[in-house]
Structures are given as structure tokens and as C-alpha cells.
């Protein structure tokens, strides 16, 4: 019988662990992608390679020392954790810091957002194989890095905040120089917005890729540009403002950036437009900088209290839950970094997409990202193990797109 010889050909189901190595950027993480042919059918995230036991360590340090420990949770959002911890301790001690300190703190936060988003933009350009724009954007990122260095004295860990205010003042000279450079930066960012939207090299690779529906984004607790790219209005700067964001919100000149696209392109647009908005915020803050002292004395022993401090980091909402007990050390300090909230939704963005798109989808949540570097392909049938660096994977992805996408 002829039907007896018929063979049903199903694409083999293969599991690909990605990570934990990464020569490019961020935390070591591991993604196990299960694929059928070119389609991803399941994804699992393994973390913990970067677990340093910070929360335990903090219980043996004073509030002032934890401030610097908090800064080193993440090198890209260092001012975020540093400032948010400072603000948590101030809330616990029920101290109101001077207005000028609030403005300078917010200015550091916003400048950091600009640098982080330009960094992401560069990485996204790199992941889709558009290295010219990658180099351009990193060249222009040096402008904002120099601004931060002039402001704080270090390029990455700014140590600008202290408990009760900020540590460095903004001189009149620095203020005008920052304003000039903000103009230049804005011009460049508008240009990158046009590149991101109009260059088909970039657009065709992100359009309709990695879809995360609004309902899924809500249920899985996505935060930051990942959620706002799916039209979920979560932005702590507007929903739960602290520091000078209260003034920024009240001025009515700024608005939450949302996109209805739900795909990687939506997230890219949210980030680029948000950068331009951030530049405007920085300018507003510098122009309306009030006079006065920059720090308030806070006693090292903080009264027993519990606070929940929230702030919108470049990648999303940061939550610090701090319990103080009357000594100069924290009783319990819990940190929820934004990427941690995005892991759950990541699975949904990956499923159903092509393997070739995996690097850009992983990069799109800005996952303290570099996890995506060395890929090991394990064939489940004969246990053949092949080690593939991400750059080769990227070349394969580009080749696959040339053959199948054909839009380049």
C-alpha cells in the first residue's frame, strides 16, 4: 500500500540554550529557546548568574554605604538605584530635601535616561546589522556621557545623590554649557528618530516582530518602554511622581509616550521619542533651576518605618521596599529592577517568531542585554553540540533574511 510508505516530515524540535556568555554588554542570563524549523515554540529564561547577594550585604552596611552599593546594582541605571535609595531613606526619616537638590537629582536621572536610550538604540541598530548607525549613535552618546562626567566627576557611577540631597552643585558656567550641548543632542536625536522610522534597513527588521499584545503585557506585569510600546500607560514619572517630577507634571508640557504598535518597532519609537522628551525635560529643569542649598542634614539613625519608593528607570519601574528599625542600618531592603519584571513577558514576545529575530527581540526589552552572545545548539536527536557565537548567529540571521525576506 502506497500510504504505508508515506512519511510525515515534521520539523525537528530543537532546544537552543543562549548564554550565559556575552561579549557585548550585560548580565549573564540564559534563554532556552525551543524551535521547530525556524519558529520559536517555547522559551524559558534562566537567571541567577549575576546574583551577588546585595540584599543580605546591605543589612551589614550603614545607609550611607548602602547608597554606593545600590549604585552598583546596575551600571547603566546607577543614578536610578542610588537616587531611589536616597529617596527611600529620606521618606523613612520624613525629611524634605531642598528644591534645588530635587531638581539636580531629577536632572541626573533624566540625563541617564538619555544615555541609556541612546545606548539601546545603538545596540538595536547593531542587532539588525545596521552598524553604521550603531557607530554614529555611540559617537553621539559621548556627548551625554561628557555632560554627566562634567556634572558628577565620573562617567558611569555618578554618586550624585546622598541622603538629604545631592553632593555637587551645578555652577552657572556648567549650566550654560549643558544647555548648549542639549541643543546639539536634540538635533541628533531628531535625526535618529527619522533614521529609525525611515530607513528600511532598520524598519523592515522590526516591523511586526516580537508582538506583545496589550492584554498580555498587562497580565505579565511588563514595565517601562516594553509596556508603553504595547499601549499600557505605566510610567511612574506621571503616575506616582516624586522629586521634581511633580513640577514637570504640573507644568503640563510633558506627556507619557505610548505606542499602539505592540511590536519591536513600537518599543523603538517609544524609546526614541522619549529621549527627545527627556532632553526637553532636562532643558526645562536647567532653565527653572531654583536657588538655595543643595543638601539637608539627616541624622544617621533613621526612625522605624517602612516605605515603598518607586521611580521610573530607563527600563521601567524600580521598586525599593525599605524597612528601617531605628539604627543606622536597614532592616530589610528589597529591590525590584525593571528587567526582572520583563522576563515573564519576554517568553510571550519570543513565541511564534523566527529564530532569526531572536536577538532583536531579546534586545528590545533592553535586558541588561548581553546575555545573547554565545549560542549553543543542542540537537536533541543525536546530542550534537555546536557552539555558535552570536555574531555568526547574526550573520546567519541576515542571510536568512536576504533569502526569505527579500526586502533589503
Amino acid at each position, binding site marked *: 500500500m502506497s500510504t504505508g510508505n508515506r512519511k510525515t516530515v515534521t520539523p525537528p524540535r530543537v532546544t537552543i540554550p543562549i548564554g*550565559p*556568555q*556575552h*561579549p*557585548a*554588554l*550585560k*548580565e*549573564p542570563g540564559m534563554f532556552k529557546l525551543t524551535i521547530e524549523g525556524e519558529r520559536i515554540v517555547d522559551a524559558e529564561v534562566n537567571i*541567577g*548568574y*549575576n*546574583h*551577588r*547577594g*546585595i540584599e*543580605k*550585604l546591605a543589612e*551589614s552596611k550603614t545607609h550611607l554605604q548602602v547608597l*554606593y*552599593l545600590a549604585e*552598583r*546594582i*546596575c*551600571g*547603566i541605571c*546607577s543614578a536610578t538605584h542610588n537616587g531611589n535609595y536616597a529617596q527611600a531613606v529620606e521618606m523613612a526619616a520624613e525629611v524634605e530635601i531642598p528644591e534645588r537638590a530635587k531638581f539636580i537629582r531629577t536632572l541626573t536621572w533624566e540625563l541617564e535616561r538619555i544615555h541609556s536610550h541612546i*545606548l539601546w538604540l545603538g545596540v538595536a541598530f547593531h542587532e539588525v546589522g545596521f552598524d553604521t548607525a550603531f*557607530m554614529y549613535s*555611540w*559617537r553621539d*552618546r*559621548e*556627548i551625554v*556621557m*561628557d555632560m554627566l562626567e*562634567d556634572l558628577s566627576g*565620573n*562617567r*558611569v*557611577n555618578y554618586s550624585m545623590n546622598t541622603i538629604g540631597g545631592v553632593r555637587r552643585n551645578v555652577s552657572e*558656567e556648567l549650566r550654560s*554649557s549643558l544647555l548648549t*550641548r542639549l541643543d*546639539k543632542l536634540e538635533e541628533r536625536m531628531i535625526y535618529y528618530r527619522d533614521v529609525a522610522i525611515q530607513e528600511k534597513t532598520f524598519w523592515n527588521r522590526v516591523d511586526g516582530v516580537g508582538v506583545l499584545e496589550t492584554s498580555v503585557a498587562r497580565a505579565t506585569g511588563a514595565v517601562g518602554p516594553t509596556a508603553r510600546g504595547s499601549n499600557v500607560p505605566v510610567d511612574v514619572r506621571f503616575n506616582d511622581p516624586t522629586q521634581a517630577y511633580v513640577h514637570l507634571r504640573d507644568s503640563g508640557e510633558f506627556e507619557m509616550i505610548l505606542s499602539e504598535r505592540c511590536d519591536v518597532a513600537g518599543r523603538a519609537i517609544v524609546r526614541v521619542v522619549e529621549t527627545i522628551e527627556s532632553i526637553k525635560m532636562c532643558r526645562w529643569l536647567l532653565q527653572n533651576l531654583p536657588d538655595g542649598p543643595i543638601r539637608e542634614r539627616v541624622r544617621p539613625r533613621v526612625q522605624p518605618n517602612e516605605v515603598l519608593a518607586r521611580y521610573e528607570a530607563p527600563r521601567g519601574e524600580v521598586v525599593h521596599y525599605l524597612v528601617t528599625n531605628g539604627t543606622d542600618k536597614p532592616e530589610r531592603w528589597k529591590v525590584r529592577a525593571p528587567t526582572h519584571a520583563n522576563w515573564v513577558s519576554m517568553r510571550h514576545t519570543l513565541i511564534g517568531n523566527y529564530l532569526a529575530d531572536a536577538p532583536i527581540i531579546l534586545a528590545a526589552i533592553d535586558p*541588561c542585554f*548581553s546575555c545573547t*552572545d*554565545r549560542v549553543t545548539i543542542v540537537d536533541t536527536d543525536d546530542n550534537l553540540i555546536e*557552539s555558535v*557565537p*552570536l*555574531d*555568526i548567529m547574526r550573520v546567519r540571521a541576515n542571510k536568512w533574511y536576504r533569502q526569505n525576506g527579500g526586502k533589503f
Partner: protein
Amino acid sequence: MGFLQKLINKARVKSPYVFHFNSGSCNGCDIEILAALMPRLDLERFGVKLVGSPRHADIMLITGPVTEQIRPRLQRIYEQMAEPKFVVAVGSCACSGGVFRGGYNVLGGVDQAIPVTAYIPGCPPKPTAITFGAYKLLEVLSKAFGVAEKKEKEEVPFDITAAQSEGVAET
């Protein structure tokens, strides 16, 4: 030393391939390493190339205090590198554990897991410091291999305070 060996050593010093490994760092050092390879300081001028596989690399740049979970992977990757291999610890965490000393899940420095050739302190080191570190390591290597150039390049004297008073450099 045979002529061929000398040639190989010379080539090695002229164009070292580096591999970057994050052993639990905060990403600060990682982006600064990347920034050192970017247009402003273009480390590739010295022939330094960032590669994705330890098998291709001569120098491994390590950032981070080495967490317990990553230690066996770090040691395995170190073993995979071809001889001669050099390890550079970038940043305070990689040098000694830095602010994470006393944590229950870190080893406190790369030298607790694998031998380290050079240390670049700083939290994080500026890209210029990384460039300087790479440059210095190349000098040391060329001496060790006996391929140092006879004539030392003269450094242009530079006054830091003068540059600071001039204000901000134009980008």
C-alpha cells in the same frame, strides 16, 4: 627563539584579540569596554579586536566579582583559551570584589578563580584608562616576548590642569 616564533610573537603583540567576559558585574565596566572600542577612542587602532569566542582570543577581559554560579563557567572558558593567554581584571570588582566584598555569593576578585596578568582599577575605569591598560599590557608583552621596539615613542607632554581650565572639549 626561531625566526618564525619571533614573527608570531610580533604578530601577537601587534594585534591581540580580546574576549570579554562578564562574571557578575554591574555592566558599568562592560559598557566602558565597549565605549573604548567605539569611535571616540577606537581601540582597534592598536589592532585590538573584540571576538565572540574564547578559542580565538589572546586576552580575556573580565569584569565583575565572580559569582558562585559563574565560577565553573569562567574556569572552563579559561581552559578553553589557547596558550599563551592573558587575563585582565577590569574594574574594582574584578580586582578584589570592590563593594561586594563580604557577599555570600561572590568570590571577591577574578584572581580567586584564575590567574590574572594585569589589573585596571576604577569603578568603572574610564575608556581612556582601559585604553591605557591595554597599551601598557602590550608594552609588557612585547618586552616579555623580546620584540620591543628599539626606539621608544616619545609621549607628548600634556598638562591636565590647562585642559580643565579650557573647559569642555568639543565633540
